[in-house]
């Protein structure tokens, strides 16, 4: 097996680039808490409405600087009354589904969460700009999938 000198140069460049990409995302994810949405919490998909925090969906202030937003996704909408949160504070979104798989995606933000029945997806995000943001479902969930949306207001 023989590598041409230029092929060695090219592969070294390629592999180093890949290592750099991985280091950048790895360090930013694990040391600055920029991991994608996820979480290991489970829930009975038929008892969502009786299980905290989804028995009381919407915004709750946890402490001075942190808010929690609990949302129930279902075909074809979100059970999430009064979505108003402040800018500059950490917002922890917790989302689950009572039926099929959906997503909870806030336009123009890093919030792009898959919502799986039986599981609770968590994502922490801090809004910088006040305004009204479109929330939509980007995982196919049925005939009304493209209508599944709502709004969050950041003040």
């Amino acid at each position, binding site marked *: 097996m023989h590598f*041409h*000198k230029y092929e060695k140069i*090219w592969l070294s460049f390629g592999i180093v680039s890949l290592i750099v990409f991985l280091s950048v995302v790895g360090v930013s994810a694990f040391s600055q808490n920029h991991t994608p949405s996820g979480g290991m919490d489970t829930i009975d998909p038929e008892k969502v409405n009786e299980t905290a925090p989804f028995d009381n969906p919407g915004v709750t202030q946890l402490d001075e600087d942190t808010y929690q937003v609990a949302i129930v996704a279902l075909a074809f909408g979100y059970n999430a009354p009064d979505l108003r949160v402040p800018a500059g504070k950490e917002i922890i979104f917790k989302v689950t589904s009572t039926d099929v798989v959906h997503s909870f995606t806030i336009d*123009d933000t890093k919030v792009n969460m898959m919502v799986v029945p039986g599981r609770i997806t968590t994502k922490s995000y801090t809004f910088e700009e006040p305004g009204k943001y479109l929330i939509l479902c980007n995982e196919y969930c049925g005939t009304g999938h493209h209508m599944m949306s709502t709004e969050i207001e950041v003040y």
Partner: protein
Amino acid sequence: MDKKQSNHEVNLKGTLVSVFFVGIVIVAMWVAVYLMYVAR
């Protein structure tokens, strides 16, 4: 042995430049989306 020799001598300068063009596309696209990610 003969083969190895001849393979060494092939002029692949154009290839080197071409693959680096590919490399630049990869890095440029990646950096662009990374910056979008950071900005959101």
